[in-house]
């Protein structure tokens, strides 16, 4: 086959696509069929099995917040995944409680997904409930007013638009909350 491909464009293309499709299909189409947790929303009522809770679809307001998060490119600086690394569970944790590791069933309704690749800012997979609305207002207006040395851009136009501000905060406050990971539900509003 390889020899034929030397002089026949058809053979070269058939060979190149054939080899490509083996890996292509096995790594894209097959995995979601094998691992069903990718598509099943998180639900657990047995505390022995870890944090309880249920993943709900996005509300209209949260969806709008997600769209703003996409539009403003927050995801180029923030990830949304607590990886299976001790440091991640500590850093995404809060007030002495470690964050549970992120699992595929927590992200079933995310489209586009916001896992991210780069942590210029902290991971946001469990940011929901860590700060109250007033904190977010001040932070969006000028991050450096709250966190000296921050390089997060200011977003005055989000604060000045009450509807958009409500939406982005609703979205952020939901992140990571399907798993009820706080011992006594001490979330900020």
């Amino acid at each position, binding site marked *: 086959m*390889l020899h034929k491909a*030397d*002089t026949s*464009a058809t053979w*070269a*293309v058939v*060979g*190149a*696509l054939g*080899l*490509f499709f083996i*890996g292509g299909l*096995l*790594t*894209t189409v097959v*995995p*979601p069929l094998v*691992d069903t947790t*990718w*598509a099943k929303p998180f639900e657990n009522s047995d505390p022995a099995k870890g944090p309880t809770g249920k993943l709900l679809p996005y509300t209209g307001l949260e969806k709008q917040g997600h769209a703003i998060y*996409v539009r*403003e*490119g927050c995801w*180029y*600086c923030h*990830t949304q*995944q607590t*990886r*299976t*690394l001790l*440091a*991640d569970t*500590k*850093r995404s944790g809060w007030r002495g409680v470690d964050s549970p*590791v992120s699992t*595929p069933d927590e*992200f*079933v*309704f*995310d489209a*586009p*997904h*916001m*896992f*991210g*690749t*780069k*942590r*210029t*800012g*902290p991971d946001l997979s469990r940011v929901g409930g860590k700060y109250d609305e007033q904190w977010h207002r001040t932070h969006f207006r000028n991050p*450096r007013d709250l*966190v000296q*040395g*921050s*390089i997060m*851009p*200011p*977003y005055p*136009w989000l604060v000045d638009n009450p509807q958009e501000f409500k939406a982005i905060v609703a979205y952020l406050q939901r992140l990571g909350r399907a798993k009820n990971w706080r011992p006594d539900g001490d979330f900020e509003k």
Partner: protein
Amino acid sequence: MQDQISRAEVVATSTPTSTLVHEDSTAKWFLVSSVTYFFIVGIVALVIAAKFVWPDLMGTVPALSYGRLRPLHVNGMLFGWLLAADMGLSYYLVPRLCGVKLWSEKLGLATAGLWNLIILGAVVSLLAGQNQGLEYAELPMPLDVAVVVAWIMFGINIFMTIAQRKYPAMYVSTWYIMGTIVWTAFVYLTGNFATLFTSGVNQANLNWMYVHNAVGLIFTPVGLALAYYFIPKASNSPLYSHKLSMVGFWSLAFVYVWTGAHHMIHGPISQWLQTISIAFSVMLLIPVWSAVYNFFATMRGQWQQLRDNVPLKFLMSGVVFYLLTCFQGPMHSLRSVNAIVSKTDWIPGHAHMAVLGAFSFFAVAGTYYALPRMFGKKLFSDALANWSYWLFMMGGLGFFVTLWLGGLWQGWQWNDWTIPFIDTVIALKPVWLVRFFSGVLMFAGIIAFAYNVLATALGTSSTEAAA
């Protein structure tokens, strides 16, 4: 016997056939517009690098905020500059390797026109915040469709040219370009269309398959096609081994596509899929080392030419960067290494070495080599070309090395969770400052390159035919 073929190819293609005159208008249009975008998007690159140092810069204009400019930088460099330059050079070298004219210059010019419309559309929509939210697939749907149409037009033109070729045996660059065309079609459809019907981890998996293979099965094969063509040409030496180039091609076709999930090592994606992606990432060393060995062996006894052959300087530095970046890649996918470098500033250092250091260097070299031959003029200035090399090289090295060191440091700090996150931000500030100034050097390189290209294309001073 195989080696004779490769030798015959190089000789055959370097003998000017007096009867065959290449028009090259498509190649010219693609190259000139790609170089223009290289310059324009270079400004965007500088601005976002500056925002890391001065975060309030242009802070109140939504269209100029970091989150809008970054996708413009990435898409503009990938599709406006690099892919357009790669396409332009493919329009140049495929007819020459086939010993015939391009099948249709009209179709080619229409493709160039459509491509320019796509890039302008991308600028407008990305600044307006119309972003699909998937990396490398940010462009809105109508533009995605236009890309597919343009790609089909490109593919038809190249395949029809190949179908009419005079030499039955195909040189390795021809396969790589054919591979690029067919693989890209499926990779692009997966990343830009299939993703829209999925969500969550499933979508992320398709997204990474696309992101990884946008580099691995688009920029790598077309970049290698350029290197396989221009290294023997620029050094006037036959390719070392045809057989070895086949090993590289077929292993690339098989191995690359399995590795997408290595973008989510330790993340919320099935462990067995992570392990598969790691195994195949390590196997990537086969296609890489076979190509690099071939290039080095071709240069045996010819290294002295590097002293004053600018295209060859870019090409061989590109080969070294390719070797390094493709050593980093497999290493990052190992779980232990990944736990330190993933999500840090190391990664942009790595990505820029691939896309700028390796593949853009190949495209710049090809442009310097092909442009005078297409226009039948001498290059505007060899000295300026040499300057562009050193500016790119110093800027590039400054950029890569500081981000690796900074990223490594950042990764170690993150793994000690007693250090508050903001302290790890402040620690990187000197790194980002050096990165900005390295960017200034690279941008100066872009200016030197773009000016040289445009002055050659538009200038009337020297009409003496070169080769």
